[in-house]
């Protein structure tokens, strides 16, 4: 595995880099370009742009699940969402979950990536073992861990009992902190290989000579790690962090399946609350749309801030 030495041409730049050979073909090219791009345009418009506009409209409308649209309801939807008793707890819980998951996942993934960095047969086997959980769906993984954690059939509860950490037949999902940490373990298991691979690609992009030079200068291993590996890995670490933060902020499947937001709404994430407003507690699509818009805006802002702070090169 090696990283491609040259980056592809700047992607978003629209400069016509190589002039088309003949004028006639260029004119035809405009039409043909549009024809080839039209399926993309159609799909993106139909299933991305329209829903995006619709969610903003719905967020300002009195729109129930069964009754449909019955007029403007702005800003009541937003007020109702923010005043809902689970809104702030769910925001707080989602942030807490995101910080914990991201810190553990990135640290573990970095360790794993450095462990399997050299390509030997044994490390290849390790790499594959760490990657296999990433091919499972999040829903399948959650169901798997649901059984794993169950006091009736799972090995976790007897193991805790044997270690003297819990009473017999304890349900680890039964307490708020137990439910949180059980979910974090599931997510770390499922995604560690994914982030390991991202960081591995970054590690292999660091030229060998840099390490050689440091070693000749007498640098100790932890100095090499702190002064060379970490700074040069910054772009990969930044991207992994952004992906992990975004993914965790949007957590849904794992909590929906493992904890159903319980016990007592203590593991309710923001995205779960959208579902709950739409289909369970309120059956109010207007409120669900309002919360969707809040999530969307928050995510765009968080991503922009992350891109700005993490992308900055260290010497700036």
């Amino acid at each position, binding site marked *: 595995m090696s990283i491609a030495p040259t980056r*592809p041409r700047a992607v978003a730049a629209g400069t016509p880099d190589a002039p088309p050979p003949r004028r006639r073909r260029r004119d035809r090219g405009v039409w043909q370009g549009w024809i080839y*791009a039209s399926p993309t345009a159609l799909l993106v418009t139909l299933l991305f742009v329209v829903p995006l506009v*619709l969610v903003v409209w719905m967020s300002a409308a009195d729109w129930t699940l069964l009754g449909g649209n019955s007029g403007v309801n702005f800003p009541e939807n937003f007020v109702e969402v923010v005043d809902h008793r689970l809104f702030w707890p769910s925001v707080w819980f989602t942030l807490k979950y995101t910080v914990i998951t991201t810190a553990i996942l990135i640290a573990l993934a970095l360790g794993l990536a450095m462990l399997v960095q050299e390509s030997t047969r044994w490390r290849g086997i390790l790499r594959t073992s760490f990657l296999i959980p990433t091919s499972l769906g999040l829903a399948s993984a959650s169901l798997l861990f649901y059984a794993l954690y*169950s006091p009736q*059939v799972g090995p976790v509860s007897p193991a805790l009992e044997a270690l003297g950490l819990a009473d017999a037949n304890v349900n680890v999902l039964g307490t708020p902190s137990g439910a949180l940490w059980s979910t974090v373990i599931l997510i770390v298991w499922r995604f560690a290989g994914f982030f390991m691979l991202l960081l591995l690609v970054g590690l292999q992009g660091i030229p060998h000579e840099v390490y050689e030079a440091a070693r000749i200068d007498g640098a100790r291993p932890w100095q090499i790690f702190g002064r060379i590996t970490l700074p040069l890995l910054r772009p990969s670490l930044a991207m992994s962090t952004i992906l992990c933060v975004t993914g965790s902020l949007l957590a849904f499947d794992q909590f929906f399946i493992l904890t159903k937001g319980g016990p007592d709404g203590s593991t309710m994430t923001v995205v779960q609350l959208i579902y709950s407003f739409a289909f369970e507690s309120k059956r109010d699509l207007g409120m669900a749309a309002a919360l969707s818009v809040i999530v969307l805006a928050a*995510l765009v802002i968080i991503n922009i801030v992350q891109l700005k702070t993490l992308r900055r090169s260290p010497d700036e």
Partner: protein
Amino acid sequence: MTRLNRLAGRTPFYVLTGGLAIIFLYPIIWTSISSVSPQPGSNQVDGFGWGNYETLVAYQDGVWHYLGNSLVVSAVAVVTTLVVATLGGYAFARFTFPGKDALFLLTLAILMVPYAALLVPLVIWLKNIGLNDTLVGVGLVLAVFQLPFATFMMRIAFEAVPREMEEAALVDGCGTFSALRRVLLHAVKPGLITIGLFAFLAAWNDFMVPLYLVSGDNQPLPLALVNMRQQVMGVIDYGATQAGVVVLTIPCILLFLVLQRHYVNGFMSGALKG
């Protein structure tokens, strides 16, 4: 002798890392074994056997029906992703047309917008375009959320092909479409396999989109399994759940092992973005 020493010196390393690998594989191995082991409260009480899988086959419309649904959703998502991203990648890599950059950026912008925030309006909108509660609707929605990665990937793939390759075909009187079909498709095949694999894994495993958009007979397997767990008279049949997880997981692990190289390639082009 020195070799033996070296091996002895490295034993702790092998034990530790091997242990780590086993931790990662343990949940999957445990589920596979449990699904055929005797468990109270399941259809497999004494001895090893396929009782839990029989429960799955007998559940409502039967596991085959839900597997079929999953296959349809995945096929729609994979085929749509492949066709749209190939044509789009070709357009973005080889043609100049007004609105090109805007459309490309708009496609990438899908990454910024989580589908969790678009499912509520999609419930309403799909009804308006006649796709509500359909497998095709779910497949198309899943394909749209594959498009940023897939289009980006195919654009890079086409840009990496030397222009001379298709010029020759064009001079020979081929249109751009037959140049694409006869010459370029071969050159971008690795990219196609990668985006196809990612689209399949995403669609096959997705839970949230079907949860919002379909119900009853149209549930794909992950959704049906979650609902089955909740409906069996309040008592959870862990054996059947484990059997279901095994059924869902086997195709993914097999595909992953066979196409591991392409999976890794997807990450490398993803990393170029960073």
